[in-house]
């Protein structure tokens, strides 16, 4: 059943997202051609129009990313908690199959969007030669991130990056689920819940930084100028611990969000 939920969700949301990404990429290509025709943005005689085109293209890329994220979240709300929920919630599937089936679609599209944004940005700023070099080096960089001798900070950052689409997806799903508990204005309630959770996580991030910062200051104050290598190691370690703490925090939040979403679907569905 999980496969079937995924299949139908994929077929439903993909046509529009594919079209949006193609349009976004076309905008990036057109802007790049325009920028080249105007002499580029790095040259001393670059025109305001070229800069404007670059900004417009960056905004377009950002819009596609934001749209993809909120569209997949909105689709979940619409399919599960709005009118279409009358069909979705009477299908013989479990809450887990529903969350994972739809979640996988969203996660895959978010991952595609991240890669797409990198490619679109490269089209915008890199020359053919630089782009070729980038792609030649990319597998080595990725391999070095996860090889045994890789710096811990790189590994933590890599894992965080891989898990980010999952964290983002479950956050928007749980917002829709909690929004469903309200009697009216459920979509608005879901948006408010989303913002609330976002701020909650930001506060948690700040708390982590506050805990790490005095520790870092104490250690660095003991170092002399001659200990520059040791200082770099200390800073790296401190940043790595902060990143790890943030990652653990995100995992804990996501697990809680997942079970909350599951609980609402199983016991508190409210399709009045």
């Amino acid at each position, binding site marked *: 059943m999980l496969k079937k939920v995924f299949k139908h969700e994929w077929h439903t949301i993909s046509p529009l997202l594919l079209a949006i990404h193609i349009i976004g990429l076309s905008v990036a290509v057109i802007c790049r051609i325009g920028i080249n025709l105007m002499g580029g943005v790095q040259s001393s005689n670059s025109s305001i129009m070229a800069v404007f085109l670059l900004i417009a293209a960056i905004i377009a890329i950002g819009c596609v990313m934001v749209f993809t994220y909120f569209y997949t979240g909105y689709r979940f709300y619409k399919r599960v908690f709005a009118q279409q929920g*009358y069909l979705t*919630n*009477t299908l013989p599937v479990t809450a887990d199959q529903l969350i994972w089936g739809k979640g996988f679609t969203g996660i895959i599209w978010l991952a595609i969007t991240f890669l797409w944004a990198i490619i679109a940005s490269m089209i915008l700023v890199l020359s053919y030669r630089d782009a070729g070099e980038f792609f030649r080096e990319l597998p080595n960089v990725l391999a070095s991130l996860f090889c045994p001798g890789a710096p811990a900070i790189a590994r933590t950052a890599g894992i965080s990056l891989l898990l980010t689409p999952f964290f983002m997806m479950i956050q928007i799903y749980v917002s829709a689920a909690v929004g469903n508990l309200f009697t009216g204005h459920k979509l608005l309630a879901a948006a408010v819940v989303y913002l609330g959770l976002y701020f909650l996580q930001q506060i948690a991030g700040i708390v982590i930084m506050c805990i790490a910062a005095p520790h870092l200051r104490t250690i660095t104050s003991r170092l002399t100028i001659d200990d520059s290598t040791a200082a770099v190691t200390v800073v790296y370690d401190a940043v790595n611990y902060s990143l790890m703490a943030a990652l653990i925090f995100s995992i804990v939040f996501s697990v809680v969000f997942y079970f909350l979403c599951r609980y609402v679907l199983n016991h508190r569905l409210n399709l009045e």
Partner: protein
Amino acid sequence: MSTILECSGLTKKYGSRTALNHVDLKLESGRIIGLLGPNGSGKSTLIKLINSLLSPTEGSLRVNGHEPGLETKKIVSYLPERSYLDENQKVSTYLSYFKDFYEDFDTARALDMLRRLNIDPALRIKTLSKGTQEKVQLILVMSRRAQLYCLDEPIAGVDPAARDYILATIINNYSEDASILISTHLIADVENILDEVVFIRDGQICMQAQVDEIRIKQGQSIDSLFREVFKC
């Protein structure tokens, strides 16, 4: 005959408002049952509880011996009072959707019913009139070989000709060992197809009787009895 639905002390509250109040109800299989009551009497709430779209505040509900959940969703076919079809999808998309998820879905039967109504499965839902959309939804629901069909206001908001078609579709497409629970307040249109009626008022069952009994013993039609019971 076995029991297809059993409710005991079933209560549903929306905040401070009580939609269903300690409902005790037992329905046998192989019957067409009318769930009759005025607007806001709790008909839709009861049907949503059967389909696990709502959770009861108190009491219990069993469909074919199971609590509402995965097992009951396999045997209950539900027609809500509103459309759940995505307007951007094609009719054929829903055929494959139902075929994928419901083992008891009969695609040939659905295609036959669509053909009789001249509905092209390749059409998008948004190109169909509201009445045709309702018919498509009914065809999907009645093309399942379910054990219990829950039809919530299936004839409200459609013209008399469409009502006849809908009722004929219901009658012609259910097996005799299955049960149909029809919620409506348009009694005159459905009373000829009913075996049993359940009157519901203010969230409580105020009468459950066989249609023949009412006609013979009380010498009344269901419609006139309804008007008498629910007189304002």
